[in-house]
């Protein structure tokens, strides 16, 4: 059985790696150069119009009027998209129940984390374990529901991806591995949850020992297994396309919903980008590796034969 200082080192290092991986993803996406506008309706933040897909351009002389924006509408839109998988429901009903199950499973398990931290803080404060009973009961229900939903979702998706031609031909080995890995998190979780006599109490105590850096920390094997699988998954997650939870912010806010007019900062960035040399090879581009994008884009055309 693993015990002692290994746990805090392992868990906090893993969390740090997850944060670093996530930050790397966020930074690598956010530091991309400003791009040409490529929005796609509906854009829910357009107040009074977003619901049916309308934009500011529906206004006569739109540049003269105020850009009325809703803060709530995009949040509501994304909430339905994230928690109910609206797009999948609308366009892929076969996949939706399993995908929804898997995602709800993940959300519920994530939700149990701060609850366990709350239990840990209460225990670390010297309060008796019985004071956390209600909190642990809620956590237990959320956890069991999450594990079961997650398992059913992952199993369903694995079966669909293995059986249905459309999905099978596009699913790579890593696609199956990612699902199986996530399934292992859920499976080890429900196994520990149902096998240990006081699962939430044990996890609460474990969390308390972690945050107090208790060197005598020790947990049962089944919980160790669940924690190790979950932590390894956490480290792996940002480096896969399962990190679409990060990318989704950018695909929606930086591309689909990005109807921001230019400002001074963007103009500076655009001038910098357009001033850099271009090296496309086709004759009509007339790039030589030295001439800039703006020089090329503003010059007169030349005759060019297509093949």
């Amino acid at each position, binding site marked *: 059985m693993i015990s002692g200082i290994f746990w805090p080192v392992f868990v906090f290092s893993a969390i740090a790696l997850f944060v670093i991986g996530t930050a790397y993803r966020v930074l690598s996406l956010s530091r991309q150069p400003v791009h*040409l506008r490529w*929005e796609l*309706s509906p854009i829910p933040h357009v107040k009074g119009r977003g619901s*049916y897909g*309308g934009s500011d351009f529906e206004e006569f002389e739109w540049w003269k009027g105020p850009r009325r924006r809703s803060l709530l509408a995009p949040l509501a839109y994304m909430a339905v998209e994230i928690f109910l998988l609206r797009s999948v429901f609308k366009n892929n009903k076969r996949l939706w129940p399993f995908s929804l199950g898997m995602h709800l499973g993940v959300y519920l398990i994530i939700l149990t984390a701060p609850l366990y931290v709350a239990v840990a803080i209460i225990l670390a404060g010297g309060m008796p374990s019985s004071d956390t009973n209600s909190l642990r009961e809620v956590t237990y229900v959320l956890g069991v529901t999450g594990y079961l939903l997650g398992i059913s979702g992952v199993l369903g998706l694995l079966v669909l991806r293995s059986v249905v031609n459309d999905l099978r031909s596009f699913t790579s080995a890593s696609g199956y591995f990612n699902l199986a890995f996530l399934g292992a998190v859920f499976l080890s979780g429900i196994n520990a949850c149902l096998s240990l006599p006081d699962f939430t109490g044990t996890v609460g105590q474990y969390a308390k020992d972690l945050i107090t850096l208790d060197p005598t920390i020790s947990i049962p094997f089944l919980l160790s297994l669940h924690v190790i699988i979950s932590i390894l998954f956490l480290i792996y997650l940002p480096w896969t396309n399962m990190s679409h939870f990060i*990318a989704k912010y950018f*695909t929606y806010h930086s591309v689909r919903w990005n109807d921001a007019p230019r400002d001074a900062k963007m103009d500076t960035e655009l001038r910098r980008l357009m001033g850099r040399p271009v090296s*496309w090879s086709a004759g009509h581009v007339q790039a030589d590796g030295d001439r800039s994008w703006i020089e090329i884009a503003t010059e007169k055309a030349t005759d*060019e034969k297509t093949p």
Partner: protein
Amino acid sequence: MKKRLKLTDISREEDSQLTEIVPDDLIPLPAPYDKPGWPADFQQLTADQQQRLVCNLDGFVALGLPRPRNEAEEKKYTELFISGMNKLLSRENNWTFLQPLLLSLDYCARCQTCNDACHVYVASGKNDLYRPTYRSEIFRNLVSRHARRRGKLRGIFGGKNVDLNWSTISRLYELSYRCNLCRRCAQACPMGVDNGLITREIRKLFSQELGWAPQELHEKGTVLQLKVGSPTGMSPDVLRDNVAFLDDDFSTSIGFNVSTPWDKEGADVLLIHSAGDILSFPESPAAFSILCQAAGIDWTLSSEIGGYDGVNYGLFYDDIQLARIAVRHAETARKLNVNKIVMGECGHQHKALMTVADRVLTGDLNIPRESAMTFLEDIVFSGKINFDPSKNDFPVTLHDPCNIVRNLGIVGPQRRILRYLCPQFREMMPHGVDNYCCGGGGGFSVMSGVNFTNWKVNIAGRMKFKQVLEAFSDRPGPEVKKYVCAPCLNCKLQFRDMFSYYRAGEKSGIKCGGLAELIVNAMADIKQAFISWEE
């Protein structure tokens, strides 16, 4: 039974086509277009065409790519394709779309949720080749292996390995012109992955690196436009003659004195039509002239090269050409010192000039740009013109051009006009931002190479034709004249091809036209009918 396609089939070295389109597989159309054996089988490629051209995809040829002369030429293009992928991933060469491209390459969940949103895929009877994900996944695989140089193990672990050879790139080139770039699939994607964008980036790679682009879009499109003024080939003198002729003709036929102003400095509005309208749908520019005149608008057309044709085919395949044309449009408006540019009824002109080029038109090139939809709505509801909606008392439905509606969010103005002026207006289903493309998007409406028109009308446009017929299902016969309002030149060209192919005028009494024509037709002060139902 249809043969299933694997991703790796794209690189099959033999010269055979990947798939065959069988008429019986296509989604059925309502009567009277549901007769077995009609329309006749697709136009087959001749032996000569098969010998000269690359035709290794689906039995249709849009691009007419000549066969390579030797292996060295094959190798040269393959190497250029690799360097093109690298340039697509570089900030210097592709700042214009780098972030959207990376997001779409890296975060697809391979869930296939987008497939049924694609009218081409569904109309074809769900042929694997036309899945929005098929070309994207192949390109993703090629980028991963050849531009990002990911290890062999990661390549195998991450997906099927598609070989890069002449067959792959020649098929991918042709396949990039089997997508209308309508972005309905992007709308369906829960991640926000945009297969339409990936398709456009593939086209861009071929154009900007290999120098491959459809003749109609490049040599006879953007190059001609920048040189002569318009892909129609109309020079400024010919343009002015044509419009003067139209002014005279319509003045005589409808009894309303039309006079189009030219190059008026300091005008409030510079109206830029698609010049193709002047040749193919002359009632559209004439209707604009009548409305501007009747409403007392201070407006002008430009006869300067770069100022009289609003089309910008660069939007479909090439960022450099896109920027060159957009800059010309804006320079013309700046020279005339107008207050704003108003788009003609042209979807891709709207998208190219109003949004996509917005971040190219810096400084004093940033002249306000208004949609024809809001411009017309303002005229109709200004109270300056009297209307008699009973003159439009025939069934009317509205086609939503993807580039005006889904891509720009201009949904309501045209509907408010039609509800006011057309008593029998009815919507297609679905409509608005959920509309289906007409099948002419992405440049297809002006592309007719080899037997491509056959593909456009039978597959790309099939869903839209079905929608039109269903919208008029209460009055199906030819005795009731029906009007499809398509406020976009490219959509009208596609409808014209489709209606001609299916003989929709003769069998169902359907015609297609723009929005401005319906408005003029309802003007109380014009006694003659403006819309003609003659074929």
